[in-house]
């Protein structure tokens, strides 16, 4: 589904080159739920934005759903983002001027879908996250957890092949975070491929597989006993 080989991302200024990703290799299979962890500044979010075609990379190869994406133009990248990828951000990133229905509608508008089909998909997605009754509400009228559920509905409405989540519970309290996580697990059980960036070892432990990034490179968890212990401890403390 997602395969990066020897991928690098360099930010250049006149005086310095900074490697955000270096010889980065990852392979996510279809239907997998992968948690990407690592300390701040390790390159997790850069990986996610490149994976989501929001940013270009400097070297290496990236195949998404079998397509090499390095030579795609803006239109092609936008079309792939719209049709194959769903995004869930830490800050929800809902458009404050649009109500819940209109927010979920945004990606479907860019797909040129007919109004009746849009409405059906939007209401299905909102039913799925339990917010169908809030369709006419504006983001400011919802709690953080509800806003993140709207963002998930927005990601789901387009039936993407890949869900990219960047700290999806980072701005939520424990109870709301648990609800959002359960929703992601449910979506995964229904067959979606999910890549989730998180700081939270407890959330990482609930994914099928963990990928750890340090200094822009994927490292083997077995070689990082501190993280291994943290994951182990989190698994023991997780609710049954």
């Amino acid at each position, binding site marked *: 589904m997602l395969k990066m080989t020897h991928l690098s991302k360099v930010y250049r200024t006149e005086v310095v080159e900074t490697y955000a990703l270096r010889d980065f290799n990852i392979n996510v299979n279809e239907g997998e739920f992968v948690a990407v962890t690592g300390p701040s500044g390790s390159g997790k979010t850069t990986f996610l934005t490149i994976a989501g075609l929001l940013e270009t990379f400097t070297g290496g190869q990236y195949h998404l759903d079998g397509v090499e994406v390095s030579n795609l133009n803006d239109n092609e990248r*936008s079309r792939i983002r719209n049709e194959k990828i769903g*995004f869930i951000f830490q800050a929800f*990133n*809902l458009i404050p001027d649009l109500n819940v229905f209109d927010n979920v509608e945004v*990606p479907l508008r860019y797909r040129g879908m007919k109004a009746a089909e849009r409405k059906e998909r939007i209401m299905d997605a909102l039913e799925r996250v339990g917010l169908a009754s809030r369709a006419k509400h504006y983001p400011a009228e919802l709690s953080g957890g509800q806003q993140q559920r709207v963002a998930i509905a927005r990601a789901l409405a387009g039936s993407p092949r890949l869900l990219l989540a960047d700290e999806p519970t980072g701005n939520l309290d424990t109870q709301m975070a648990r609800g959002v996580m359960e929703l992601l697990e449910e979506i995964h059980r229904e067959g979606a491929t999910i890549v989730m960036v998180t700081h939270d070892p407890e959330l990482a432990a609930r994914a099928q597989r963990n990928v750890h990034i340090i200094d822009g490179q994927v490292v083997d968890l077995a070689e990082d006993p501190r993280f291994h212990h943290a994951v182990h401890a989190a698994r023991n403390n997780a609710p049954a």
Partner: protein
Amino acid sequence: MFAYYLQLGLRSLRKNPLLTLLMVLAIGCGVAASMTTYSVFRATSNNPIPQKSSQLYVPQIDNWGPEAQQDNKGEPPNAITYTDAINLMRDKRATRQTALFPAAMSIVPADPSMLPFRETSYAWYADAFPMFDIPFLYGHGWTADEDASHAAVAVIGKALNDKLFDGANSVGKNINLNGRDYRIVGVSAKWNPEPVFYDVINTNGFDDPIEVFIPFTRAVEVQTTTNGNNNCSKDPGKGWDAWIKSECVWLGFWAELPTTAQADAYRQYLNGYAAEQQRSGRFHWAPNTRLRNVTEWLDYQKVVPQEAKVSLLVSLGFLLICLVNTVGLLLAKFMKRASEIGVRRALGATRKEIYLQFLIEAAAIGLAGGVVGLVLTGLGVMGISLVFEPDIAKLATLDASLVLLTMLLAILATVLAAFYPTWRAAQVQPAWQLKSN
């Protein structure tokens, strides 16, 4: 997607009413100032006879010599003498030609209940009617034979026909002009070219419609004096005969020359004619002639008032300042929505779609600015007489074409002003926006 973007645009405009009002007012004021002054400029710079403006020519012949022309930068006088007019008419080198002059006529109505009144009339030749494409309600112009026989015939205008004959067909009836009866041979439909190209010298380009036309030959026979300019380089002497034989210039002259070759041939003819006058001892200088078509003649006579040009330039400058302000306001407005742009890009919007969304929003501002501009233009046109002469000011009208132009200018100018802010909006990097949130 157009309706969707328009809906988003209107929603965004409603969200910041003060900012929206500022932009709409800036566009409205700039457009109104430009359109008000343009309405004057348009009327004064209008081509009054577009279908023939390149075929009708004014010949000029220098009968005064270099000394008298020192103040005129070597250009021949703007009018010609009776001698030259008659010679040019006699030689008939153009397809059609006419000499002409304005004359004040006292009209004595047949209806005893009506008081006599004065009308400006023109004395010219039969060729003038087809030459100037004058439309007729009844009858037609007089004939060349009637020119030759100095016939007492006249063509009157629609307004005069309405006044004297209640709009009925008056062909064959008589009209009393300066105490003499003239048989009406035609009633012209409304004909009022603006500028009045055929007699710029005596009208400054703008005047009321002319209601009476009589044969030039008849007017001269009854010694009708001109109501226009009469310029002499030296004393013409006393009496009618002395005046018409003098070097005083007081006649307009027009020649219809449908092709460039004919115009070139006519130029040669004019030079030849001037050379002949030199040989005969009348001119003591080399031939100095000109031949200008309608457009060149109006340019040469500076029919467009200088203040119309200056005020148009000033108001366009004002519009530019308004647009620069709008650029700043739009930039602030659009960049405030960088995070929304980032989200839309992440969800599949191409750069082109971001361009479209924001350009349509700008067009909505332009549309509102156009409506405000239209109202202000209407007020401006009503108040234009405070700045321009009444003859000029009355030409400024808010007609359908100006309404359309005002709306188009407002929308186009705003969309143009939105190009840079929209370009900046479309350059927003979604990754950075989403990371920074």
